[in-house]
């Protein structure tokens, strides 16, 4: 039986038509699931001619199909589910940054403003290299911009029940950094603080390459609320580092958000207390733990972030997660021929 002729391939960039070689490595390209052969095309054609039309009950409604033709849904661009993020990481890699904090502590704002830096070009030596979540990022950032029509910058609340991530791929020279920032509702972290198992509430915790613990500056600025917030943060660090949570050695950032709302006295107070949080994180097994203060989206015009670069540099710093290998290249005695008796 002769080899069916290849007349097309759905795989992007496949050279089968030019060179006869299959991108997937099939020795017989006709066996590739992406290939369109003369035989398969002929089967489809004969089905139509013989009247074997698809079941009318399964056919789309005519009116519906006509109305669909007027609007082309491009799809995509939303935040990623875990399985979508997994597929994307197969293609680009993924450095997962778990952004943890209570409700309205500024988690989504931070992610939105990080994205927003790249709307103006490169930032801190890094350039934007792509995202499959542009719609999600833009939607989160849009409320902060003048052309949103809002009188004050605002970021939509995270509504998703699921674990979701947004990917922000960066590059610096030939180096690529595929950041995947979590976008998780604050209520889930409340559950952890209340003693719920991190493994089931935030299953992504175990995959985190970096941990950001956001502490709401607006709460810290209040004499009545700051102690409660601090206690909550301690519980959060404790809960996230339980079994099934953030892995040992995970670099951690303790970040005071909305720092523009915190006066000097309260900043000083926080700086002293944050050292305790840092110590706690290290005792709980976190990796190198640093303290930052950020105002990702200050209330006062022009609403440009304050003190974002140090945190950004921390996010983009090279991973130290690698095995120690000793190279024994010292000349110890005779380094040429040796013999031993067996």
């Amino acid at each position, binding site marked *: 039986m002769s080899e069916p002729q290849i007349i097309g391939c759905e795989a992007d960039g496949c050279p089968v038509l030019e060179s006869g070689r299959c991108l997937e490595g099939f020795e017989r390209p006709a066996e590739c699931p992406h290939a369109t052969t003369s035989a398969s095309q002929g089967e489809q054609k004969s089905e139509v001619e013989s009247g074997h039309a698809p079941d009318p009950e399964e056919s789309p409604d005519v009116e519906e199909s006509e109305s669909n033709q007027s609007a082309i849904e491009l799809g995509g661009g939303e935040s990623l589910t875990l399985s979508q993020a*997994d597929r994307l990481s197969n293609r680009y890699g993924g*450095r997962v940054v778990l952004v943890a904090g209570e409700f309205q502590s500024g988690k989504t704002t931070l992610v939105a403003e990080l994205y927003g830096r790249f709307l103006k070009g490169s930032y801190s030596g890094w350039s934007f290299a792509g995202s499959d979540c542009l719609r999600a990022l833009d939607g989160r950032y849009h409320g902060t911009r003048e052309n949103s029509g809002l009188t004050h910058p605002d970021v939509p609340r995270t509504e998703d029940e699921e674990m979701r991530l947004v990917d922000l791929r960066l590059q610096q020279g030939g180096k690529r950094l595929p950041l995947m920032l979590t976008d998780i509702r604050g209520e889930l972290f409340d559950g952890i603080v209340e003693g719920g198992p991190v493994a089931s509430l935030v299953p992504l915790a175990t995959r985190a390459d970096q941990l950001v613990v956001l502490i709401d500056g607006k709460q810290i600025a209040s004499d009545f609320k700051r102690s409660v917030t601090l206690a909550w943060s301690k519980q959060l660090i404790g809960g996230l580092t339980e079994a099934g949570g953030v892995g040992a050695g995970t670099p951690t950032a303790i970040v005071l958000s909305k720092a523009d709302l915190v006066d000097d006295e309260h900043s000083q107070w926080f700086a002293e207390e944050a050292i305790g949080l840092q110590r706690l994180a290290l005792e709980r097994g976190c990796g190198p733990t640093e303290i930052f203060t950020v105002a990702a989206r200050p209330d006062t015009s022009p609403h440009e972030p304050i003190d974002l670069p140090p945190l950004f540099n921390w996010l983009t710093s090279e991973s130290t997660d690698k095995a120690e290998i000793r190279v024994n290249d010292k000349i110890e005695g005779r380094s040429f*021929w040796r013999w031993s008796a067996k």
Partner: protein
Amino acid sequence: MSEAFVDENFGRWMRSVTIVDDEERLGVLKAASEAAEKDLVGRELAVVMAAYGRMDEAILGWLGAHLRAIDDSFVAEGKEEMLKVLAAVAVLGRIVSSEEPDATLCALAVSSADFSGMDAVIAELPQTARSRLVEIGRAVRETQVPAASSYLVKVPPQRKEVNEAGEATGIGQALTDIYSVGQAIKKLATMVDSSVRPALARQLALEEEIEMLWWVISDVDETNVPWSERSGLGRAVAGAVELAVRTRILPEPPSAHALLDKLLGKEAAKERSLAEFATEAAAQKINSLAGQEHALLPIASAYEAINKFATDDDENTWQNAMQNQLKVDPQLKHSLLGGSLQLYRELQIVRLLGE
């Protein structure tokens, strides 16, 4: 360092290209990387390039085929980064588990990639290759010989025609003695036979060692030009070539670094660009570098580019060609020792590719 190192770290390496924990998938990926590791011969440079983030279609298809052999639903498209990590694991696994030429070639190629300023997708790959190059260089020069005691044979004592009791030695006794002597001779012959190969290997290693040691203390090079009259760059290039000629066993001995360092002396730490190394090599007419064009042979490729494109008035065209085609920066600076060692390694790679 052994295969256990790969087993212990495989999950962590795959973590960088997956989000969801999936033990079954991990098993498939591990099995495929092990199969690929055993199938590296003939594609070592291409797989090392993939391990450094520059995967070509052929390697994409090759890795895809190995994965499909285990999971026939696997599709390579859209999994480029994962496949690069798998390529790196295959290279690393081969380097730690073997002393065969393909493992040596991989280790040398990794060293070249570092020199060219490329970044490995697995952070441990460069250090592992450096470590193993030293270990393999030692191991291939070690000779095992049978212990002296294994040459000991027992032969029966010589009998007299008539023993002390006045009994004559019978034919049966004589035959027994002959049999024992025969067994002893057979054993001795086997031991001598098995000593010949180690003796030859020992001789080869000794000759190489003596050649290199005399060479490094000599005041003149092979053309009888005093080393002191050569520039640092000239010594670096000529030294690498002459050491390569004296390297009878691949890969290099662990002391290669020290030998070149001794030759270069105080100049060893001075820096020159890749372009300068290649220009000096062209001036010295190192024919063994000719015909190469690969990012993992940066000095040889620059040498080839100079021969093709450089003129007295134009130093830029060949550099632009190299940057555009191979993505290697000819202006990247290296110490004289680093450049000399790189040239020495490229000559080893060229030799291994030709074998």
